[in-house]
């Protein structure tokens, strides 16, 4: 019997007075996978993640996370999830250690001091632990936010643009830590991002959204092949701008291209 998906979204709709943010999307995220949610501004990524977290109520449709119906059963699973977003901050006057201790207690983490010490070593935060969070640079704050997201060893991480406004070095560093965590724990990661290089590197699968709908959904390699492009950025632009001439190729041509792409990507996958 196949393992139940970590996330199952079925005909999900979110309408606001100003318009429809999410328009009847369905998808399932396999346990242990890294899935990218791509789309331009206003595509519905953040609203989708917020509904998965139980922060926003759907207008219709259902979301199941780790087997729990959201948002009604969210307290069954919130302690097994965590999230990170550059648009949500931690109290700036508290030191890093204080912030992490508060969240560790909220998530019911055992042996808080040891867990914080371990994460501080892993994420190179040892020297920052007793500094006020507000005094940190953007990159340091991102590392602290990542530490917060990892505190409870989540089975499911939802990341909303985890490397936004970071320099390439710090962004690469964060991606490496996410890969390490996933490899070590088998956690599921759902990642909303505008950074195509990040998505290509981290994700097993990409869901492309536009105006609240899913425009495409496949592995990065298959998408590249289908759109006949060299980078996901080009695919993203094709989808975002609705370029008819760059749309998916005919089925037989696509199958051949996907087969080629799988062959090409195999060494890359092995290296990961």
């Amino acid at each position, binding site marked *: 019997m196949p393992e139940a998906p970590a996330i199952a979204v079925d005909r999900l709709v979110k309408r606001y007075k100003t318009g429809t943010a999410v328009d009847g999307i369905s998808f399932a995220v396999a346990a242990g996978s890294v899935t990218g949610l791509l789309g331009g501004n206003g595509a519905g990524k953040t609203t989708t993640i917020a509904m998965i977290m139980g922060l926003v109520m759907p207008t219709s449709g259902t979301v199941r996370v780790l087997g729990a119906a959201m948002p009604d059963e969210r*307290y069954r699973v*919130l302690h097994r999830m965590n999230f990170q977003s550059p648009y949500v901050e931690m*109290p700036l006057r*508290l030191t890093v250690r204080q912030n992490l201790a508060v969240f560790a207690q909220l998530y*019911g983490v055992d042996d808080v001091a040891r867990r914080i010490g371990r994460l501080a070593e892993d994420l190179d935060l040892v020297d920052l632990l007793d500094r006020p969070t507000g005094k940190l640079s953007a990159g340091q704050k991102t590392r602290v936010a990542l530490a917060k997201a990892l505190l409870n060893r989540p089975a499911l991480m939802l990341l909303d643009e985890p490397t936004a406004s970071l320099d390439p070095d710090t962004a690469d560093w964060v991606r490496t830590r996410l890969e390490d965590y996933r490899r070590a724990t088998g956690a599921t990661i759902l990642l909303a991002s505008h950074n195509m290089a990040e998505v290509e590197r981290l994700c097993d699968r990409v869901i492309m959204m536009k105006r609240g709908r899913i425009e495409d959904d496949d592995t990065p390699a298959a998408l590249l092949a289908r759109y006949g492009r060299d980078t996901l950025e080009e695919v993203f632009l094709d989808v975002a701008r609705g370029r008819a001439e760059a749309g998916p190729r005919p089925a037989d041509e696509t199958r051949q291209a996907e087969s080629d792409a799988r062959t090409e990507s195999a060494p890359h996958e092995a290296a990961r």
Partner: protein
Amino acid sequence: MSHGGEWTISGARVGALVRRYWYLLRSSWPRLLDLVYWPAVQMLMWGFLQTYMAQADGTLARTGATFLGAVLLWDILFRGQIGFSISFLEEMWSRNLANLMMSPLRPVEFVAALMIMSVIRLAIGIVPVSLMAIAFFGFNLWGMGLALVAFFVNLILTSWAVGLFTAGVLLRNGLGAENLAWTLMFLLLPLTCVYYPVAALPGWLQTVAWTLPPTYVFEGMRALMLDHVFRADLMAWALGLNLVLITGAAVAFLALLRSARHQGSLLQMGE
């Protein structure tokens, strides 16, 4: 730790949040000073006015004799609500609310932590100011004894009810509604007859005043200070009305929270 339903209460989670507010308070001397500064200024002003009016004869002197008691009890009501609301606002100002709402913290635990913090902040402000009142004017709030406990319980319940309702409005409408947190309680200042007897109001307004729990407390305070009588009946009425008020505030808070989840307001906590 329990991972039960929406109404499960974990002392650890409540403690975590109280700890967060305590860290914040401890880290900022202006925040600590603010807790004492304004109550002290008010106490001094009303204290000197009371001293001046004591030199007059008749009703005026009798009314003035309760000013210090009134201002200190008003502070319990007002500072109790402000303590609740500021702790809540701290989460919005620091853009931390989504972190909390996506954590296992239950709304009931959040509210419990805000209530505890309102009492802690109140104690930091009112204890030194009440001692100053003894030193400057020989007025001993603590001399009210058990009556003070009854006054305190009723006033703090009202302050929590107003704080809870305000928090719901803030969740639903964002920081655009922040002024409500600072000013809503002042609506009760004239209506609950803090500094004068209910009889001073026009008849129809007296009816309104008697629907508000603090009115019973301030009348009870005057009965205690002027006639040396503890009016248990007034306290029982206040308690009954407070239970209605706090139940209404809790229902409103949950409805506004639900509405905020529908409207997506928890995602956009700005103005």
